[in-house]
């Protein structure tokens, strides 16, 4: 379970998160929507301890991670799988070495089993015979899927997806949506999905949270968000240029 209370984060004069409160239940899939630069990626980096808040609490399964040392954060981070917005594959490693990277550090398997898991993880994201390639030989979409395979390889309890469908064709994006759903149904994985893609949000999310002005302005099931009376939410989900959101 993830509980965030009164989270503040500023970069100089830019106040990105301003007292954000959010709870994600175990086994739930939460989609976080919001305009570009609204702090969605900053939010998930706080959840995994890659950033420290200026103020507020982030509690993961009963442990407040804000005051933990790097060594203590290691145990918290092994619960998480993170798909980065631009995949963040290691340039100097092959696809196979990328996917086995976390697996070798978080789990203790013999080399044959590791290779088996690597190939299985790549197959889950629709990739075959790419394990020997270097990241620069992959398309943007393939990189994203390798990044996803790397994140799911060690079967984390919590998955954080930073714009999983960006840069991928609609068919492949839907396959990734199915994978997110399968992870929840089969492994009871808790997921937080950062997205602009409302089709994806409606399909995968149990609840959708709208981030605006550093706070969650509305959170609820997809139908509730679709029928929201909040003009900010309506403008965003319908992608209208006119409305209360001006800061594009």
């Amino acid at each position, binding site marked *: 379970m993830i509980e965030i209370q009164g989270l503040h984060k500023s970069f100089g004069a830019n106040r990105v998160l301003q007292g954000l409160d959010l709870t994600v239940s175990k086994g739930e899939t939460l989609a976080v929507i919001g305009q570009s630069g609204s702090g969605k990626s900053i939010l998930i*980096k706080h959840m995994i301890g890659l950033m420290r808040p200026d103020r507020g609490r982030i509690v993961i399964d009963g442990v407040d991670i804000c005051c933990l040392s790097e060594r203590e954060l290691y145990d918290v981070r092994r619960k998480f*799988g*993170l798909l*980065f917005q631009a995949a*963040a594959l290691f340039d100097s490693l092959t696809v196979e070495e990328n996917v086995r*990277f*976390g697996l070798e550090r978080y789990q203790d398997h013999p080399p044959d089993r590791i290779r088996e898991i690597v190939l299985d993880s790549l197959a889950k994201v629709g990739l075959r015979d790419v394990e020997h390639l270097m990241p620069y030989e992959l398309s943007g979409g393939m990189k994203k899927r390798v990044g996803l395979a790397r994140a799911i390889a060690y079967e984390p309890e919590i998955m954080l997806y930073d714009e999983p469908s960006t840069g991928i064709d609609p068919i492949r994006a839907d396959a990734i949506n199915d994978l997110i759903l399968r992870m929840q149904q089969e492994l009871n994985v808790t997921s937080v999905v950062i997205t602009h893609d409302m089709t994806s949000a409606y399909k995968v999310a149990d609840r959708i949270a709208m981030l605006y002005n550093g706070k969650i302005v509305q959170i609820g099931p997809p139908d509730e968000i679709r029928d929201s009376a909040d003009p900010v939410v309506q403008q965003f989900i319908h992608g209208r240029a006119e409305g209360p959101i001006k800061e594009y």
Partner: protein
Amino acid sequence: MAAESKPFPFSTLFSNVGQVGLLFGRAAAGLFHKPFERENFLQQLEDIGVRSLPVVSLTAAFGGLVFGLQTYIGFHRFIGPGSEAYGGPVISLGLTKELIPILVGLMITGRVGSAMAAEIGTMKITEQVDALYSLGADPVRYLVTPRLLASVIMVPILVLYGDIIGIACGYIYNIMMGVNQHIYLKNTLLYLEFWDVVTGLIKASVFGGVIAIIGCWQGLEARGGAEGVGRAATRAVVVASIAVLILNFFLSKALPADMVI
């Protein structure tokens, strides 16, 4: 109206020195933690050592030649014709204790320090450093420790190699100028002590550590895209070069001139 004077940023200087010191401490502590990144370390040995051989060869050869030339002129002019053969120890001493460590240190700063800053800086801005954290690897142990160790080991080896090339080139130049080969070699072997060579190697080891830690530090501090990476690489070269030159003086003062080993 008088221009508002900007105070010298002492606080920034101390803060930076503190950051480098902390990074060095964490990287050094990484040597005693498992897993040691063996493949990364071997890769760095090759990058820093083997791939620097051509540039070190050229630098040492021309350093030796020009030092041989000036020593020849100096002895010929101030002591007289025939005295040039006594320049051998001067050339060897100057090369092993000062010129080769400094030249190699500066060349490695340009070739390796900037590459470290650029590579780690690129990893930083493309979130690969965050990915290391998320996948259970400490970026300092994974990136900095192998580079630091490889640099501390390889720079002295390059300096020793440069010493041999430089002394050989100084000798060849003097022989070509008609200097008495027998006296030149006899004096060189008589007056050049093992400690002189060791002094240069100790300096080189310190330079190696400083170059690696400053390169990695600048890489980890990189911000703001390709421009930020370029700035980090430039700063790594400038800061490490200045550090090498300053440290060289203090090490020359601190290390005893003679020591029986």
